[in-house]
């Protein structure tokens, strides 16, 4: 057991079914995971991979059949573990008759926050999530995206040391997605440990330090993001405007044509400079040069399916 570990999962196994149901489904099988303080860990994997089951077991809502889970050295589900944890589910299930302000005050009270702290934190979190103007509106009148943002606000309300976010960008528009990613980065800078379950691999690449890929209830792959980036050899050069000679100048490179005449040239790290130089010499207009998404490739390799993001 590591003293700096916030989450320690050892051999977690969870099976669903009962005496009356013949079919028993093993949702999670022998999952072990160590999340260090201050790190941002992504849980990725297709639907039904066991991400939400693991998260519910972390919160103590589900009991493991085998294995152990500790949060801050305390058993999962203990009051001390929950006091230091903020959680947002894939869909924020709350009371539609409450206003946003009332809902947050309610969750603040449940977290044991003193009245003065609630009075200060509620408007601050509402403003942070862009909901200040909707504070006195009933949640049932909110759009799906607003409900999700309110869900994140309640998770952040008591300043938790651990944030567990189960697909927090579900139902959000690009602006909302960016806001969530920015908040994750802010919390990361503050030293909050974050466990993020997501299908949006670009967000994962942007915000996370580690990635854990689940498949069929087990850990299929676990890697440090920095290592993953370093291991990635592929680069993508976005060409906004081609010339005839430019296309002929890079015969060996893989070219993918996108919409509006834009193309992406993929090449290895070693060839990157030479290809770029040739394209520029031949008059091609370059939009951007970036490292290719290695996570998506890995995801596709391990799951054999396309992501929902």
């Amino acid at each position: 057991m590591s003293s700096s570990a916030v989450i320690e999962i050892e051999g977690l196994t969870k099976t669903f079914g009962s005496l009356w149901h013949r079919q028993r489904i093993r949702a999670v099988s022998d999952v072990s995971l160590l999340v260090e303080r201050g790190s941002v860990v992504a849980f990725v994997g297709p639907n039904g991979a066991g991400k939400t089951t693991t998260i519910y077991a972390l919160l103590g809502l589900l009991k493991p059949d085998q294995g152990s889970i500790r949060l801050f050295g305390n058993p999962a589900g203990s009051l001390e573990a929950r006091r230091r944890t903020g959680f947002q589910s894939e869909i924020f299930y709350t009371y539609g008759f409450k206003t946003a302000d009332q809902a947050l005050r309610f969750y603040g009270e449940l977290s044991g926050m003193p009245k003065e702290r609630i009075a200060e934190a509620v408007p601050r979190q509402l403003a942070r999530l862009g909901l200040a103007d909707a504070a006195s509106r009933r949640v049932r009148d909110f759009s799906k995206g607003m409900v999700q943002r309110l869900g994140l606000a309640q998770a952040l309300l008591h300043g938790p040391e651990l944030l567990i976010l189960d697909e927090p960008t579900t139902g959000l528009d690009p602006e909302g997605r960016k806001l969530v990613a920015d908040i994750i980065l802010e919390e990361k800078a503050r030293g909050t440990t974050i466990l993020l379950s997501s299908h949006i691999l670009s967000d994962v690449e942007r915000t996370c330090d580690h990635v854990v890929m689940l498949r069929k209830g087990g850990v299929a792959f676990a890697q440090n993001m920095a290592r993953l980036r370093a291991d990635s050899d592929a680069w993508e050069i976005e060409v906004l405007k081609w010339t005839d000679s430019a296309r002929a100048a890079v015969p060996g490179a893989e070219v993918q044509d996108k919409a509006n005449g834009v193309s992406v040239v993929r090449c290895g790290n070693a060839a990157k400079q030479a290809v770029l130089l040739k394209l520029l010499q031949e008059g091609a207009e370059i939009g951007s040069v970036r490292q290719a998404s290695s996570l998506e490739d890995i995801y596709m390799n391990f799951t054999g399916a396309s992501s929902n993001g």
Partner: protein
Amino acid sequence: MVKVWAIARTSWQETIRRQVFYIVLLVTLLVGLIIGSQMVLVRMAGAAGEAAAVAQIRASFIGTALQVWNAAVIFLAIFLGAITLSSEVSKKTIVHVLSRPVSRSAYLAGRWLGVLMFLWAFLALGVALSLLLAHYFNVGWTPMASVAVLGMFIKAAFFSGIAVAMSTFMVPMLAGCVSFVLYVLLPSYAVQGLHNPAWTPRILANALYYLLPARMPVDLLGESFSQQMIRPEYALYLEILTENSLYVLAAFAVGCWILGRRELRLR
């Protein structure tokens, strides 16, 4: 305590928005109106100069109205108690409550308290209406009526608490039915069966007699406005009410224990 109170307020807000309450309220008022039609007899008796009959009909009307209100409260207590937990599970609102540092017993206590506050408010409304009617009809409010009203409040707590406790390990429909059978139907059976000549039902009745809560030896509400009132044994009535209060607290503690060990399967 702040957490229990926060959950109780939310439970109250949910309960007051349930359609079933308005249906029961409407039915209760309608039944009250139908019973009120006997007031026609008051006019006839008054015209005939039967002052004693007028007083008896008026007192009987208030007693019956209270009994109707009591039946509505018992129905609501069982129904609302049985669904208060399952509605949170089915709507999944329980997830963000129990992911907070809230013990399951505090959570269940808050849910029950919210339902109870609602039932008691509903009951208080009925009692207030009865008091107004008693004042209007010049019917004396007897001490036994006060004990009967206290009994109604305890019954509301009793049936809702039992239903909440049952719902920790049963689906709401079953919890409601079992609560009704165990605590409304079976006690009468137990009392009747105690003197059954056949030994099997007698043994069963004896077992139930000790397992089930104590029953009032008289119908307090019925006797409250009766002209030939029995000699009241207030100490015994209060003892039974206390015993039943302790009974429901014990049942609730068992419910908390079960919920604390149960995992929440959310679909």
